[in-house]
C-alpha cells in the first residue's frame, strides 16, 4: 500500500504546482489537524493479553465534520493513515459533500481474531477515541478489514458514553440506521462514471468490453451494474486468479458462485487468466478494483485498454500514470471514481440526523446526480485547462478546501 499514499502526495504536488501554491500554503493544506495514536490492550479468548496500536488522523475540517474509513490491517501505520486521510479531504471536496477528511485504523490481522475478539477490539478502540469523534466532528465508516458489523459494535459502544447517536458512524447495518444501497454504492458509482466517461467519447457501455480486477465488494457491484447496463464484462479476477471469456462472462452466475464458495476459484465461465495478464487485455475499459499499485513502470506499456477507471485507491503508480498519459490512455482518478461510497455514507448521515429514511430509489437517484455532476465539473476543467482528469480532480478538491480555508480564516 506504500505506493498508494506516495502517489497521493505526488498528485497533490502536481496540482499544487499548476495552481502555483507557495510552500507555506501547501504546508497548511497538508498538515493534519490532529493525529491520535492509542494503545488497545485486551484479553484474547485463550487468556493471553494482546496489545494493538490504533490510529485516528483528522486531516482537515475546513469544509465540515471529518469523514473517513476505519481499517483493520496488519500494515496500518501513521504514514499510511495520514496519506489516506488527506485523500479523503480531496475526495469529499471533489464530490462536494459538506465534509472534511480523516482516516483511522488498527494494526491487526483481523482474520487472526475470533468474532468475539474483534468485538472487544472495536469496543476498546471506541473507549479510547470516543471524545474525539462524533456526528459533528469526525464520522468513521467501514474500510479494508471492517464491515457493517464492526460499525454496529462501534455505534453501540459510542452510545454508552454519549447516548442515542446513530450518525456517529456510517456503513451501519440497515437494521441499525444504515442506508439502503450503502453496500453497493462504491461499485455503483464506478459503473455510473464509467458510463459517463464513455459517453464523452460518444460510446456506450452496451458496445464496450470491460475487464475488472478484483471481485470483492467494489468489483462485484461494478460488474453487476455494467452487466445490467448491457456492457460486456469479458474478464474478472480475485486473489484466486481470473476468468476470461471473449463473449462476456455470465456475471449473475459468477456472483452466485462467489456468494456460495467465497472466491472465484473453480468458476468455469471462461478460460483461466492471471491477474497480471488481465491488466494487458485488449478491452475498452480496464477497472482495477482491488489493490493499490498494480499498474507500474513494468506493465504500464502493456496496457491495451483505452480507458482506465480507478475503482481501488491508488492502483496506478505515478510513474505508470506518466506512461499512460503519454500513450493517451484516459484515466478516471480514484478520488472521483470511487467516491460513491462516501457519497452514500453522507446520505446515511443525513437520514440519521433527520430521523427520516429514504428508499433505495431516492438514494440511487441522488448518488447518480452527485457523481455525474462532479464528473462533468472535473471533465470540463480538464478540457479547459488541457490537463489530465486526475490533475483536474485535485484542482477542484484543493480549490474548494482552499476557499473554505480562506473564508474561515486561520
Amino acid at each position, binding site marked *: 500500500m506504500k505506493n498508494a499514499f506516495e502517489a497521493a502526495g505526488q498528485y497533490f504536488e502536481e496540482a499544487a504546482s499548476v*495552481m502555483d501554491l*507557495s510552500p507555506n*500554503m501547501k504546508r497548511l493544506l497538508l498538515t493534519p489537524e490532529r493525529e491520535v495514536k492509542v494503545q488497545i490492550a485486551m484479553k484474547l479468548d485463550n487468556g493471553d493479553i494482546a496489545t494493538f496500536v490504533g490510529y485516528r488522523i483528522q486531516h482537515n475540517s475546513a469544509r465540515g465534520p471529518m469523514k473517513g474509513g476505519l481499517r483493520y490491517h496488519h500494515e496500518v501505520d501513521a504514514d499510511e493513515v495520514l496519506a489516506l486521510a488527506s485523500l479523503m479531504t480531496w475526495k469529499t471536496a471533489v464530490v462536494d459533500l459538506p465534509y472534511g477528511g480523516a482516516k483511522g485504523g488498527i494494526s491487526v490481522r483481523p482474520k487472526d481474531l475470533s468474532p468475539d475478539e474483534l468485538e472487544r477490539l472495536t469496543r476498546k478502540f471506541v473507549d479510547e477515541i470516543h471524545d474525539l469523534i462524533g456526528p459533528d466532528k469526525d464520522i468513521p465508516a467501514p474500510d479494508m478489514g471492517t464491515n457493517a458489523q464492526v460499525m454496529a459494535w462501534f455505534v453501540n459502544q459510542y452510545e454508552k458514553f454519549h447516548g442515542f447517536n446513530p450518525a456517529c458512524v456510517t456503513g451501519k447495518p440497515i437494521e441499525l440506521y444504515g442506508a439502503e444501497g450503502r453496500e453497493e454504492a462504491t461499485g455503483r458509482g464506478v459503473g455510473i462514471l464509467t458510463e459517463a466517461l464513455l459517453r464523452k467519447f460518444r460510446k456506450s457501455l452496451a458496445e464496450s468490453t470491460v475487464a475488472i480486477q478484483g471481485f470483492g465488494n467494489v468489483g462485484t457491484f461494478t460488474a453487476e451494474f455494467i452487466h445490467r447496463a448491457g456492457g460486456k464484462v469479458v474478464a474478472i479476477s480475485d486473489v484466486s486468479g481470473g476468468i476470461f471469456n471473449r463473449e462476456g462472462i455470465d456475471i449473475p452466475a459468477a456472483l452466485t458462485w462467489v456468494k456460495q464458495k467465497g472466491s472465484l476459484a473453480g468458476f468455469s465461465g471462461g478460460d483461466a487468466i492471471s491477474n497480471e495478464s488481465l491488466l494487458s487485455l485488449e478491452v475498452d475499459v480496464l477497472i482495477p478494483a482491488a489493490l493499490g499499485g498494480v499498474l507500474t513502470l513494468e506493465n504500464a506499456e502493456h496496457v491495451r485498454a483505452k480507458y482506465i477507471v480507478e475503482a481501488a485507491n491508488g492502483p496506478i503508480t505515478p510513474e505508470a500514470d506518466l506512461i499512460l498519459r503519454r500513450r493517451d490512455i484516459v484515466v478516471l482518478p480514484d478520488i472521483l471514481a470511487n467516491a460513491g461510497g462516501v457519497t452514500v455514507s453522507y446520505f446515511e448521515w443525513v437520514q440519521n440526523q433527520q430521523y427520516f429514511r429514504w428508499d433505495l430509489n431516492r438514494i440511487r437517484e441522488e448518488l447518480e446526480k452527485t457523481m455525474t455532476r462532479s464528473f462533468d465539473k472535473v471533465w470540463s*476543467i480538464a478540457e479547459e485547462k488541457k490537463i489530465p482528469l486526475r490533475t483536474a480532480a485535485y484542482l477542484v478538491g484543493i480549490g474548494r478546501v482552499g476557499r473554505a480555508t480562506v473564508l474561515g480564516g486561520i
Partner: protein
Amino acid sequence: MISAEKLTAYPTFEGLGPADAARVIQDMTRMNFDADSTILHEGKSIQALWIILSGECTVVRQAEDGSEMVLAELRVGDVFGEMSFVRTAPHSATIRAKTSVSVCTYTREDFMKLAAEHPGAAFRICSNIAAVLSERLQRMDAWICQLVDRPEAVSHRDEWQTFRSAVYSNWNF
C-alpha cells in the same frame, strides 16, 4: 571641549597626530540639546560630523503609514551624520535626544580646509568614515540575507492574499 587623546579614541578620528587632533578640536562647535528635542531632521541636510559627548540619542525613521520606527540607539562616543558628511544628500533618518545631550560638530567646510592644508589628516578621517560605513553595509547585507532566508516573515500577508485571489479567480470552479 575634549582632549586630543579622547578625540583620537573615537573610530572616526583614530590615527590622527596630536597636532592634527588639536586643529580639529579647535574647529569643533559644542552644542547642547534637551531631552526629546530633534538634533537632525530626516530629509534635511547639514554637512557635519556629530560626536556625542554625553547623553543618549535615538535614530528614528518614518514608516510609510506615518508611524515611527526606532532604528538604533546612540551613546557617548558614537558619531553620526557621516553619510551626509561625505555626500551632499538629505539625512536618511532623524536623530532625537533621548536624554539631555551634549554634542560637538565638525563641519565639512572645516574639513575641506583641513584637506587643503593637511591632506594626510583628512585622508585618515575619510578612510575611518569609509570603514564605519562599510561595516554598517556589511550588517545590512547580513540582515537582508536573513530576510530572504525566511520569506514568510516578510511576505505572509501577500501569501494569504495571493492564495485567496488564486482560489477565487483562476481556480474558482
